[in-house]
């Protein structure tokens, strides 16, 4: 989750009161953000991904002062009509590469050091989170004085694009930027395979930027002298780019700027003319009864209005049976349904003040039958003096195959495992058990262990193509670990379940020849038993003999006689 750094001094100035660090800590946590640390003037706050509007000093201040202080209520953001040339012409060529953009002009800014830092922070944080590393949307900010309006947004053949990108000493073409420029190498994959790359150009044909990669050195840098800026956000859907522009515009107006509207002239296929930025709140009708039902409180109209105000949301009388209408600021991109008001109401009310209730709902508790059976098996086996082990389901392929002298057919494997030695789902439990014995060689013998675990194999019949089962494995290991020992465990277990197991000789690569068999109960084959072969023991570097069995638990359970007989 993204973390932003807030200036404590600025925050307290906006609050018009001084909170202690302890109070700040508490209030920040209950606003629905997470305080990481306070260090001098820096407050590091973690922002949940649903609230990109909080990713700036200004946005956070706005929410926090409404929540804590006296500045509750909907904050109005005025947008002045733009001039004749305040236009962005969208060339139809962008339709297949990066079709949407929302833009704004902000005038009369004073870019102090702090403001420049703030603008860079909000742009960067929006890129990473809301913009999904520029994939979903990317933002550019340009000093207006170097630009001649109107602006054109078009897609061009990469080799026809030529400009001097930021931090570069010379002009580069589109493909050169992708291969040579650091930003090109980092984000180039976002344009990979495209026949044309998108560019913003001004009226003189000067390239402003090649989104989502890089701005031009000539027009893409804000300095302390900059007063007026042009901002754009490009992406794949109007509501996303519009959300980002609203968030930045609000932050820049909060810094003292004045927003001017631009006309975005989309071709018909992309929806025609749109104005931007649109800072007018949108209307979300809701029923008070609806939100109260989820909250578990009976908030009256006045309280509802007051609480929404503390979250910066306006509220008006409704019509058509919806008793209220919420006025949602354009930068609150997280609100998409009346249910989203419930959380804001709960936060404003104080999540810490929600009083608990244990409702009177009669339902019957029920343990899953197979899970209950597993608990029974644990009881029986631990009663026989065995110790239960518990391994990961992900394991090394070699452990399941070569080391256990098994083939690798129908193993289920994962892609790109962070822990490389764990990339295969186990099909058998015994190899993990032998691994455990290997790691415990320095401990006291005998080492008699059991495990109940899931196993996986490829099976086309299943929805996912993966079959899953529940197995029991038992391993006895020590100087006298031989067939009799393991057979005694099996017989004892079966006796507890009131049936008799039959073992039929059957050779397998991991058991000693002539000392292995299949286990069947009531004619159903459900596992194998034997003395572990010296080759396998050697593979697991074990210096003690071992004998083992492994069984299908669901199958056994299906055979257990559960009927009451009188």
């Amino acid at each position, binding site marked *: 989750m993204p973390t932003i750094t807030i200036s404590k001094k600025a925050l307290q100035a906006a609050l018009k009161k001084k909170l202690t660090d302890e109070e700040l800590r508490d209030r920040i946590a209950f606003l629905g953000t997470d305080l990481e640390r306070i260090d001098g003037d820096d407050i590091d706050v973690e922002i949940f991904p649903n609230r990109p509007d909080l990713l700036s000093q200004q946005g956070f201040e706005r929410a926090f002062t409404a929540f804590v202080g006296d500045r509750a209520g909907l904050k109005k953001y005025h947008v002045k009509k733009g001039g004749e040339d305040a236009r962005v012409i969208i060339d139809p060529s962008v339709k297949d590469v990066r079709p949407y953009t929302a833009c704004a002009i902000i005038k009369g800014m004073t870019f102090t050091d702090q403001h420049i830092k703030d603008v860079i922070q909000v742009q960067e944080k929006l890129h990473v989170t809301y913009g999904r590393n520029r994939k979903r949307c990317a933002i550019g900010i340009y000093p207006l004085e170097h630009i001649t309006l109107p602006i054109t947004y078009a897609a061009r053949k990469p080799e026809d694009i030529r400009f001097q990108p930021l931090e570069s000493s010379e002009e580069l073409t589109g493909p050169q930027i992708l291969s040579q420029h650091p930003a090109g190498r980092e984000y180039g994959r976002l344009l990979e395979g495209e026949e044309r790359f998108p560019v913003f150009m001004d009226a003189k044909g000067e390239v402003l930027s090649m989104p989502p990669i890089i701005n031009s050195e000539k027009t893409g840098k804000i300095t302390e002298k900059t007063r007026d800026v042009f901002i754009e956000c490009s992406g794949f859907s109007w509501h996303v780019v519009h959300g980002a522009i609203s968030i930045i515009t609000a932050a820049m107006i909060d810094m003292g700027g004045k927003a001017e509207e631009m006309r975005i002239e989309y071709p018909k296929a992309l929806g025609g003319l749109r104005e931007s930025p649109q800072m007018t709140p949108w209307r979300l009708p809701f029923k008070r009864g609806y939100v109260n039902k989820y909250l578990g409180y009976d908030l009256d109209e006045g309280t509802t209005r007051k609480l929404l105000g503390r979250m910066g949301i306006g509220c008006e009388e409704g019509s058509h049976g919806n008793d209220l209408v919420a006025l949602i600021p354009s930068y609150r991109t997280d609100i998409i349904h009346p249910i989203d008001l419930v959380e804001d109401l709960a936060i404003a009310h104080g999540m810490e003040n929600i009083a608990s209730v244990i409702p009177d709902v009669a339902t019957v508790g029920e343990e899953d039958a197979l899970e209950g059976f597993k608990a029974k098996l644990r009881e029986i086996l631990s009663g026989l003096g065995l110790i239960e082990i518990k391994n990961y389901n992900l394991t090394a392929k070699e452990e399941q195959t070569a080391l256990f002298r098994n083939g690798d057919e129908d193993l*289920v494997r994962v892609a790109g495992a962070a822990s490389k030695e764990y990339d295969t789902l186990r099909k058998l439990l015994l190899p993990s058990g032998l691994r455990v014995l290997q790691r415990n060689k320095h401990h006291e013998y005998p080492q008699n262990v059991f495990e109940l675990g899931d196993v996986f194999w490829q099976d086309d019949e299943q*929805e996912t193509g993966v079959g899953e089962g529940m197995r029991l494995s038992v391993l006895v290991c020590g100087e006298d670990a031989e067939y009799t020992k393991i057979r005694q465990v099996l017989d004892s277990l079966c006796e507890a379940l009131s049936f008799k197991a039959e073992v039929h000789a059957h050779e397998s690569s991991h058991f000693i020849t002539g000392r292995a068999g299949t286990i069947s109960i009531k004619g159903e084959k459900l596992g194998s038993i034997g003395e572990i072969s010296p080759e396998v023991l050697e593979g697991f570097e074990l210096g003690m003999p071992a004998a083992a069995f492994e069984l299908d638990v669901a199958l056994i359970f299906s055979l257990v006689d559960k009927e009451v007989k009188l």
Partner: protein
Amino acid sequence: MRNLGESLHALERKTLPLVEKHPELHDLAAASKLQEVETMRALQWLSNKKLVTLHEEKEELVTLDTNGRRYKEQGLPERRALELLKDGSKSVPALTEAGIAPEEIDIIIGSLKKKAAIDISKEDNHLTLTLNGTGKKLLEKPSLEELFLQQEFPIPTKQLKPEELFALTSLKTRKNIIKVETKKTVRATITKAGAALLREGIDAEGGVDRLTPRMLETGSWKKKRFRPYDVSINVPRINRGRQHFINEATQYAKRIWLDMGFKEMTGTHVQTAFWDLDALFVPQDHPAREMQDTYYLKHPMKGKVTDKEAWERVKAAHEHGGDTGSKGWRTPFDEEVALRNVLRTHTTVLSARTLRTVKETGIPAKHFVIGKVYRNESLDWKHLFEFHQVDGIVIDPNANLRHLKGYLEEFYKKMGFPKVRMRPGHFPYTEPSVEPEVWHPAKKEWVEMGGAGIFRPEVTKTLIGEEIPVLAWGLGLERIIAPHYGITDIRELYQNDLKQLRRMKNFIK
């Protein structure tokens, strides 16, 4: 003194008189015809009674390991290679054909290069080895390592000559040739008290040690004296069979939900992203879906979704909100993304699937599961790639946020954390979302326990068919139980150390 004499165990009686002549444990055992463990036990008891003093000496012994035994017979790999190279250069494949194992090639090259005995060239893409002058000289006499291996083992390191020590150091760097083990020798000397007791004489018979069935049958016990024991002594520990301590705690946690009327859910670990994420309204470009967080399957990569109605409804919810009154994510639903197989990232996937059938099974309903979930992480003291989640849902037309707090409080109270609070949180599938925290009495701070909330209408209306409040939580199990066992490195929960498993305390609340 007399009492002391009487209280001696039969083993002590046999041992004490022999100590002076046979001070070393091994000898003493042989002389007394007892087993070494018995003798040791007797010596320890005698030492407790201050009749003997024990001296432990450690001695380092060199023994041969698996490869060492083999090389002693066959010769070291480099010797075999030298012999093969005697008649001229050989390529690596030629060497393996002549009986050198492939895994020995590196050893040979390493060792002969170190001695500057060979020149290596590359011919036809194969390394080729040629003996040089130094190498030919090596043929004439055995190396120090070889001479060393020919001795009788074990050898105490104390007795090694400098050239043998050199050979030992060199062989120790190689795999499984030499083992150096520390052997303890125990010597006993008799104390003044011990000598005094012996002078007084100890009755070889002593008091009766054990009450036997025979004595009971014949009544002979009536005439016997029972040797008094030192009942304050430590006795050897015994191992009990037991279930894994995590399962014990899980069983306890399950009981809490069962007692509150919750029904257990089960389901597969492999799921399509559709059920694991899409059905829960997680946007298709959500960062949590990336490969560094989620395990995607390589084989088999894709699954199917047979519930066509759910498929269409979930797709609609994502694209435009469907019939839920939501705007949805307003991006096209990518079917390929939805069909990718994943290892379930949360057991909430089982809650989602339960919502599909709850209309038939009846509302209100309460379900829970404590099950394994997977995250593509590297193991460290705080992170596991497989762990357990405690999931629960309450499907109840009257459910609300206050009930949610009620259920969570009840659960944590019974798990040993009486103070619970909810902090605002964020999850794509719940609204409101909260992060339950419990007060950790030892750490004196609030500790995050997982996530909870009320399922969004985009989830409930889409999967159930009508908007019914569904309370939901997904809580970490390991972080609740680790403190109980005093575990701070979370990997210790699954290290399967038999000593830890044997001795871990039981889960009792």
